[in-house]
């Protein structure tokens, strides 16, 4: 079965979440949300997923602080963070680029919960669709949340890797380096290298990112598209037009 770029990202995310007991997604995160809901569907009832902005898939009752409290308690297994810039030490920047802070040339909304969750959640998946040297830089201009530094601080959390439109990098917290694990169908190691501003480890043979099987795609296009459509109807209309048509 053929599949779209988004479908590959979603199924890859679902694979990365396997074994988690509690996963949450943040604002404006349709692909992580769909990935988490797919992982839940495949978990046989062992995974809880909280989709921010959802009504049916939001079980939090204690206000906006509860997500952070869950992370502090060690109950939140996985979360997603992005960044206007991400560097080779896995520092992420959600604040701004160019010139001196706070009068940056480009200003993004701000750090949200990253300055905390990145340190507390064991399985943070860095997710940024755009894979360019503008985003993946040698060194971020502002550190919203620091990659693992090797210093002895309380840090049960951190990045497990970085997923983009081109590839999946794992992150080695001890060596503080990304490693290219797989390249998505239709793309090449050279393309990844050309568009990445930081150094990374690269094995001699880099496999293609695993394609979703037919059963998974069917589950995604049916039940999962409906589930995530509650929170992200425009995303579903665009990515799963057949699913929408079938429901109507």
């Amino acid at each position: 079965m053929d599949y779209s770029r988004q479908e590959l990202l979603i199924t890859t995310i679902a694979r990365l979440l396997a074994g988690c007991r509690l996963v949450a997604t943040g604002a404006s995160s349709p692909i992580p949300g769909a990935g988490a809901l797919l992982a839940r569907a495949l978990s046989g009832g062992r995974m809880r997923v909280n989709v921010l902005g959802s009504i049916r898939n939001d079980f939090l009752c204690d206000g906006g602080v509860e997500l952070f409290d869950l992370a502090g308690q060690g109950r939140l297994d996985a979360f997603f963070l992005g960044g206007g810039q991400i560097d080779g030490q896995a520092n992420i920047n959600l604040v701004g680029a160019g010139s001196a802070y706070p009068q940056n040339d480009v200003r993004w909304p701000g750090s949200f919960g990253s300055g905390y969750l990145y340190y507390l959640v064991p399985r943070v998946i860095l997710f940024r669709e755009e894979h360019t040297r503008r985003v993946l830089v040698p060194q971020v201009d502002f550190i919203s949340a620091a990659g693992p530094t090797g210093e002895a601080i309380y840090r049960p959390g951190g990045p497990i890797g970085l997923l983009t439109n081109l590839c999946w990098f794992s992150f080695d917290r001890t060596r503080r380096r990304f490693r290219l694990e797989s390249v998505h169908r239709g793309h090449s190691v050279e393309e990844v290298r050309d568009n990445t501003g930081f150094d990374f480890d690269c094995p001699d043979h880099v496999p293609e990112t695993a394609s979703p099987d037919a059963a998974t795609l069917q589950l995604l296009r049916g039940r999962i598209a409906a589930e995530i459509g509650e929170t992200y109807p425009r995303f579903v209309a665009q990515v799963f037009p057949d699913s929408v048509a079938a429901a109507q």
Partner: protein
Amino acid sequence: MPGPTIEQLAAQIPDGARIAVPPDYSGVAMELTRAMIRRGVRNLHLVCVPISGLQADLLIGAGCVGTLETSAVTLGEYGGAPRFAAGLKRGAFKMMDATCPAVHAAIQAAGKGLPFMPLRGLLGSDLLKNRPDWQVIDNPFAAEKDPIVLLPAIRPDIAVFHAPFADRNGNVFIGRRRELVAMAHASAMSLVTVEEIRDVDLLSSEESAAGTLTAAYIGDIAVAPRGAWPVKLWDIYDYDDAHMRQYVEVSRSDEGFARYLADFVYQRQAAE
């Protein structure tokens, strides 16, 4: 007896006040925000608990903000906040970038009368580096070296938000939006707008009391139907999609924003 008007609420917010505002999903007092701009409030210390959107962008654009303490300003799916970005670039206000749980923790500290609250994370970040008001101590309970950030309490003068309804005794229904409770506890007083006053007593049943902010924390309440417009209110009404798109479009330029204020903020006063 008729309650106070929106303008009367706005008049209670002095120049230089430290005011706490909630995120869009909690209920934003937009009608009151427009009245604050009309009254010409200046030099606010705006604390977003923990982020803001159109409300902060309007107040910044209208020159009401002297200090901004927030974890983000964003118009969500409508894009970046144009007046926030423009104001920052020209250094129009003092910026205090935070991370969401840091704002929550500092607000909770004030709600408990504590001078500070510890928070994990933040170490090695430029957030910490740019916040001289935050301190790092060594956790005195750890056997090994264990640095941890202490955040000073944030004690707003006034918490400002919009809720679906208040009861006849001035208790406000806040549902699961417990950041509103935290803001009200932390602040010297709260100014609240509501869609309506209902002739009920929220404290009369365990179920309704569980989602209630009790009147003891509230300074004044004004009725403002669709008072969060054009921002959404819970699942009661959604963003005014066309208006939000228009806002993002026109507010890219100073002139466009001035026109927006004339049309949607000052206009109203002239009509009254």
